[in-house]
């Protein structure tokens, strides 16, 4: 590990008594956690060999949740873009996968193409919806999702209201197909988390959080608000497109009412709120919570969603930083730090009292 850089300010050079500070972005906890997560991902990758079928299905659901939550967190948590129309890009990804697979492309390669299609579709959409902020942006994204759904319904080439089944998977045996879908989901989930993490650690992360908390103040400090929003929107749309393609592969059938279901947006909102907005760890925890809730409560049908909606409201009002925000505040942990940690230089590598800024 690199030693933290020590900065001396001009005031200190001038002989004024200013405590020199050390700025670090990493910690021993974070190193340990990175090690653990590498082991966990390796373990997850080995699941099809070791346990096989029965473990794959629930893990696929969980990993899909992780990817959706991390991407929505990039939008809403970091950049302040509360889109409830991300189901539009789930749908776009699913239909993109169908279309490329129907043209003979390998469906697993199709996931990558679906991500590209999602990002490309997001460009014109962003030109419209990014004119709005807050709640107006949220409803405009609902409109966009509705438009996409109607267009899919009115297009006979993709099966209209009845939908289409995904071709190109007949060549695989059931066991192999299941394992390949599992690995693809694992790759998309890890890429989403790691991608968002690396993106947010760059200057983009600081800019995005500035834009998210106050766009006017951010603009006046020289942040290019439009560009930051556009980048967040397009990256999230591309990732969500890949998730949509995965969902199409998992269900093997693409039908407008299910792939454009607003349920996906509700799930994303819930996971990020419960786990903790604008943290990398939060959405992963939130995905786990939603997964467990779904496993235990889905038999109750609508009541399950009443609970999900209610918990989202309570989380926003009472614990606005989510489970992870609460835990990291108490424990002083930051497993995947995205901020800067400033402490007096002479206290060395001791325990800093300040956790990362939210």
């Amino acid at each position, binding site marked *: 590990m690199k030693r933290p850089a020590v900065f001396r300010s001009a005031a200190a050079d001038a002989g004024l008594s200013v405590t020199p500070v050390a700025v670090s972005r990493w910690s021993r906890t974070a190193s340990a956690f990175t090690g653990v997560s590498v082991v966990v991902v390796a373990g997850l990758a080995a699941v099809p060999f070791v346990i096989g079928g029965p473990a794959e299905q629930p893990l696929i659901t969980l990993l899909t949740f992780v990817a959706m939550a991390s991407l929505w967190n990039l939008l*809403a948590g970091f950049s*302040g873009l*509360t889109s*409830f129309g991300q189901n539009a890009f789930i749908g776009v990804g699913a239909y993109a996968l169908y279309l490329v697979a129907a043209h003979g492309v390998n469906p697993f390669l199709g996931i990558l193409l679906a991500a590209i299609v999602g990002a490309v579709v997001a460009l014109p959409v962003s*030109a*419209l919806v*990014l*004119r*709005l*902020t*807050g*709640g*107006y942006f*949220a*409803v*405009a994204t*609902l*409109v*966009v999702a*509705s*438009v996409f759904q*109607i*267009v899919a*319904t*009115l297009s006979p080439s993709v099966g209209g209201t009845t939908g289409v089944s995904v071709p190109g998977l007949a060549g695989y045996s059931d066991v192999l197909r299941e394992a390949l879908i599992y690995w693809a989901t694992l790759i998309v989930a890890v890429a989403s988390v790691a991608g968002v993490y690396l993106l947010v650690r760059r200057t983009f992360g600081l800019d995005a959080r500035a834009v*998210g*908390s106050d*766009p*006017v103040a951010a*603009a*006046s400090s020289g942040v290019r*608000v*439009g560009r930051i*929003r556009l980048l967040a929107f397009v990256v999230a749309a591309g990732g969500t497109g890949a998730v949509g393609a995965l969902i199409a592969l998992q269900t093997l059938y693409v039908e407008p009412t299910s792939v454009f279901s*607003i349920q996906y947006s*509700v799930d994303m*909102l819930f996971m990020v*709120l419960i786990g903790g*907005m604008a943290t990398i760890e939060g959405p992963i925890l939130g995905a786990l919570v939603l997964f467990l809730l779904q496993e235990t409560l889905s038999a109750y*049908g*609508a*009541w399950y*969603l*009443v609970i*999900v*909606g*209610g*918990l*989202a*409201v309570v989380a*926003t*009002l009472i614990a*606005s930083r989510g489970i992870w925000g609460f835990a990291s505040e108490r424990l002083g942990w930051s497993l995947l730090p995205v901020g800067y940690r400033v402490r007096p230089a002479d206290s060395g590598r001791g325990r800093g009292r300040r956790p990362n800024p939210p």
Partner: protein
Amino acid sequence: MNWVNAVIQGMLLGGQYALIACGLSLAFGVMRIVNLAHGDLAVCGAYLGLVLSSVLGVPVWVTLPLLLPAAFAVGMGLQVLLFGRALRHGVLAPVLVTFGLSVMIENLLQVAATSDPRGLNGGALTLASFHITSGITVSWLFLTAFLTACAVLSCLQLLLSRTSWGRKVRATADDLDTARLVGIRVRPVFATVAGIAVATAALAGVFIGTIGTFDPQAGTNTLIFAFEAVVIGGIGSLWGTLVGGVALGITQVVVGELNQAYAVLAVHLLFLAVLTVRPGGLFTSHQSAAEARGAGGAGGLRGFQVVGRVRGMRGRGAPG
């Protein structure tokens, strides 16, 4: 003659959209809250009307004296319990809270009333109609809905421009902190505004339920239409909302005349087109003029924040 008929029917349909939308517009103008549960609250109003009218055995109109105060109380309660608290948590919290509320309402209705579509008992008014010419028949129910929308908008406009309550609302909408400084108690103002917003939503829900059918999931589409009416008309402008609603209604009926499958798509595309060409809505300049004069009922209800060159720099405290 078909086209004239379509335009007339569309205009009347637009009245309903404006009726749902005016509460959304008012709540945003004053509290800067986009209530994503607004459509669901309208649907709740329809269900409440269904329960009351079937328990009392009367047409739903007779239950309005019970229903509207109840809706008003619900609105005040929601403001005090949820929206007011959410507003103190920053810009994002109201969006998240109202969306969570919307999910809760839809699924509670699902549990309580199943997903069967319902209709309301509108009494003799439901089927009554009159002829303008041989080809044009106007339903009294549609006309009542349209006139009710006009009446509600006029009342709101008068309340805002002529009463002391209206002055407080406009002052609060203009600048929250200054309003507090000059001694306006903001919370009661917010609570009454939320009450009125929910009561108008419930009234609109009763009309929707009498004219067509409704089910627990109808709220999201209701919200989207109301929102489109607000944006097309120009946010914060109450009469603009009526024009927006009418534009939506005419588009829907005229395109529906050509091909029913494209009617809703056409409405959404109209909205997106207005958003592209005039993101501030059709009545921005009029509204800004009213603002500059400091006159006009909703003149103080400033437009939403448009991120962009000039208007993006208008913070909450900037002079309008």
